[in-house]
């Protein structure tokens, strides 16, 4: 290819980059458009434009001043973070038992866990509500943290188990000879090795918890305990039927940006985390 003018090669390159551009545009455009919309106000909202025409922070200001959005944002961060930490903590110990210790019924247990991950949320909502009230955590962040384990835990256990199974057994044995207990092996030896998997599963769990709506709506009953998706659904315009598109888009941008940033930071790890575990056939 060097020195000679390669028409076909060039065409291929051009087509390839065209495809890349197409994929990127399709992926990003709605978000871009949301950002665009979030800077519009009033009747401007209903006029289609492709490039920024007006530029106003008004929507952002009203999101942040309206109700208790900053507080909701904080709730979301708190709930999602604690959910992730808790799920990872429970999952990593469970994964150790499931991947590293031989016992009867291990396969069955794994299948059960997988089964739980496919529960429709609707199917457990009422029962879960009873449990939440019984535990007296209704309308606290703990209700959400608790109920979110239903979808974060099976997934994290699953991925971490497959990941941990692939860790070399010799390292564990070296630690055993060094006199490490299972707990020390997990915390001091495995965890540092697993961090791509922890990042991946943690991020997936974080996103799931961050985005959850149904439980968040059902298990909280005050502005101070609600999370952002609910807050967005509650965002309102001046009067009853008015849908404040501009403000919703501003809020959407605000909630999405942290996730996008997280994804950007960890995108390399996400792929390697998945590669190493979880999705192997």
């Amino acid at each position, binding site marked *: 290819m060097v020195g000679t003018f390669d028409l076909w090669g060039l065409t291929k390159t051009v087509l390839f980059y065209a495809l890349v551009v197409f994929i990127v545009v399709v992926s990003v455009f709605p978000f871009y458009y949301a950002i665009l919309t979030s800077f519009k*106000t*009033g*009747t*401007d909202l*209903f*006029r289609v434009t492709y490039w920024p025409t007006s530029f106003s922070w008004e929507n952002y200001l009203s999101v942040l001043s309206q*109700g208790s959005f900053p507080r909701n944002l904080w709730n979301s961060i708190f709930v999602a973070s604690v959910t992730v930490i808790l799920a990872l903590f429970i999952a990593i110990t469970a994964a150790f038992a499931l991947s590293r210790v031989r016992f009867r019924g291990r396969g069955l247990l794994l299948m059960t866990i997988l089964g739980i991950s496919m529960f429709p949320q609707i199917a457990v*909502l*009422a029962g879960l*509500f*009873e449990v939440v*009230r019984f535990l007296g955590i*209704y*309308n606290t962040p703990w209700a959400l943290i608790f109920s979110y384990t239903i979808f974060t835990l099976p997934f994290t256990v699953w991925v971490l188990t497959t990941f941990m199974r692939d860790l070399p057994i010799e390292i564990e044995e070296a630690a055993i000879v060094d006199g490490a207990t299972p707990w020390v092996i997990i915390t001091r030896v495995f965890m540092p090795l697993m961090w791509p998997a922890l990042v991946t599963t943690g991020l997936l769990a974080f996103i799931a918890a961050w985005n959850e709506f149904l439980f968040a*709506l*059902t298990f909280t*009953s*005050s*502005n101070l305990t609600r999370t952002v998706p*609910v807050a967005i*659904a*509650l965002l*309102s*315009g*001046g*009067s*009853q*039927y*008015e*849908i*404040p598109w501009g403000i919703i888009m501003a809020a959407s941008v605000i909630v999405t940006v942290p996730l996008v940033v997280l994804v950007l930071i960890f995108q390399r790890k996400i792929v390697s985390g998945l590669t190493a575990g979880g999705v192997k056939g």
Partner: protein
Amino acid sequence: AELSIVSGDTGNGLAFLRSQLDKFEAATGNTVTVVPMPSSTSDQFGQYRLWLAAGNSDIDVYTTDVIWAPQLAEQFLDLTEAAKDVAGDHFPSIIESQTVDGKLVAIPAYTDAPALFYRKDLLEKYNKEVPKTWAELKATAQEIMDGERADGNADMYGFVFQGNAYEGLTCNALEWVKSYGGGQIVEADGSISINNPQAAAAITEAASWIGTISPEGNLAYQEEESRGVWQLGNSVFMRNWPYAYALGEGADSAVAGKFDVAPLPAGEGEGARSAATLGGWNYAVSKYSQDPDEAIKLALFLTSPEVQKERAIQQTNLPTLVALYDDADIAKAAPIIPNWKEIFQNAVPRPSAPTKTDYNEVSSQFWSAVHNTLSGNGTAAENLEMLELQLTELKGAGW
């Protein structure tokens, strides 16, 4: 005491509520927190059902839709005794709608009835009258729409309403049916009346709008989408609630100063009349409230003449107290409210009282049948026949 009140109200509405609660707090020494809810009434309803079913004592006062009383009656306190002095001041039909088996479930806070919004300027330009019947509306809309489109406004439509498959469509369609003298789906005595030629004619007429004077997309419109089209100046007529009035007069509105409201058109045939579905909101007290006495005080306060008057002035919400329609301050601040009295006089209730706990399902089946017809799945007659069958099954031995 510490009270909490749950409300699906939004923005200005919440701000207003807060301001009134502040007065209440100052007057009584109670503290009241507001728990806002999504504005979708069906989301609110599902949530309240769940909370009440679980005996949630965190909420004392609920803001309820006019149609909910029969379905939630069991979990709310009987307010008959508490409201015996004031009940007579409200429109009797509204009090009636909140009374289930002799028990006053909620006290009315304000009422709601839709109107026909029309473009004064365009009617003048084409020298048209405000339509009195649906047929007139269609003809006028078609003419103006064609004319405007010819003038270069390709996005111009004749009429927008709420055609999405949701409670709003039940409201719209009930108006059509009633305006054609086709009854009100289920009559007060519980009989199912919907399968009749007048009703079919009404819905057939409405179906003919889609794709002609109304955009295809109207099938997915709720209040806001119609208002969006309207407020961009892209529709001659709109069916909507009073809230759209203030917004339409807003600074950035393309139709500010160019529109007015009138009662919805009437249908044709026997019993034809103008009809508006009765909306409105009320305050009910949870039976699980830890401090019922103070909660009842709050409900009474929020429905008192002072608050209703302020509400009318600030929010253009229609009072439920008869006397307020003659109030000079209101007439001055919100001149359309007296106008609306006429509309409100024509208001029809949705059949929530006779169908009791089954109302939501009745409504859902009704709007599905209508939505199917509007979107061309079967004729009105076929769909209504089917609906009758379904409702009969649902009714079983009795509602």
